[in-house]
């Protein structure tokens, strides 16, 4: 399907570019926000990425899938933006000092909305690399090789980041759940 629309756009039918926007805007936003952690910056990244795709569509040779090529562009744009803006990072405590095991029942006890909110918050607290790898691996169901191809990191590096991301995710979820319980007690 992508190939057909690529040919149409390259043939001069610019309006058909709408297909790529409609199909890939959510994926691009999800990837961008993992890195930049801010909705408006993520939108900026997505816009820049689509413009780059439009200008370089001719150079897409089809060696990888369009989705992989596009993801690579979004990831590059997102990391370029944070290099420029240098956002504050949240320091992570030593992983081994904190008990990370969460009782599954505790998580299942809270509502879906709360779960969703807490996951989004925890993802914001994770480093850009960690939240990006988590989203690509679990949400987009990409394997580590594809992630390595898109990010330019080695497969081993992706695995290490994924391992750390899982650990840190649970640390932050535990912290958020503690805060929630405190709020319940005092408020």
């Amino acid at each position, binding site marked *: 399907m992508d190939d057909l629309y690529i040919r149409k756009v390259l043939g001069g039918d610019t309006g058909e570019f709408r297909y790529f*926007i409609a199909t890939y805007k959510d994926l691009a936003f999800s990837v961008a926000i993992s890195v930049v952690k801010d909705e408006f910056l993520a939108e900026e990244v997505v816009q820049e990425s689509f413009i780059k795709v439009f*200008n370089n569509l001719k150079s897409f040779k089809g060696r990888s899938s369009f989705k992989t090529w596009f993801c690579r562009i979004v990831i590059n744009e997102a990391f370029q933006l944070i290099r420029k803006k240098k956002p504050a990072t949240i320091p992570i405590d030593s992983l081994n000092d904190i008990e990370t095991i969460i009782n599954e029942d505790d998580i299942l006890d809270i509502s879906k909305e709360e779960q969703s909110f807490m996951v989004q918050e925890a993802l914001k607290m994770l480093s850009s690399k960690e939240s990006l790898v988590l989203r690509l691996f679990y949400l987009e169901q990409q394997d580590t090789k594809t992630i390595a191809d898109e990010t330019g990191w080695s497969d081993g590096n992706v695995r290490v980041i994924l391992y750390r991301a899982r650990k840190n995710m649970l640390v932050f979820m535990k912290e958020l759940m503690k805060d929630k319980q405190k709020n319940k007690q005092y408020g």
Partner: protein
Amino acid sequence: MDNSVKEEKIVKSLMKHSRADMPFQDFDERMMDLIYKEERQQKSIRRDIRMAWMFFFLGLFLGLFIAGFTIEPDIFGDNIPTQTINMILQICIAVVLLFQLDRLLGFSSKRWRLKQYKQSS
């Protein structure tokens, strides 16, 4: 259950709620406007470069024509030889043209390099 397997299971379950869709409803329209604007800009740049080259060659031939054929022999009197005036004019035109050619080549090659860089990155 093994600790890491349990962690994996919890994270997998949590990540089902991590979907972050584009929250801006009018994104598609605004993006298409930007794409059309980009297309116009690219066309305009290509046209400007073509025009710059066209006027450069026009200026080159016109300059050579003026310098070579239209100087009247007696316009500066007998003190300065016509050949000297011609030579001075031709040198002036050559300097201006070389200067313009350098800028035009610089601009065109910069654009070409940028295009190559974009394609490779």
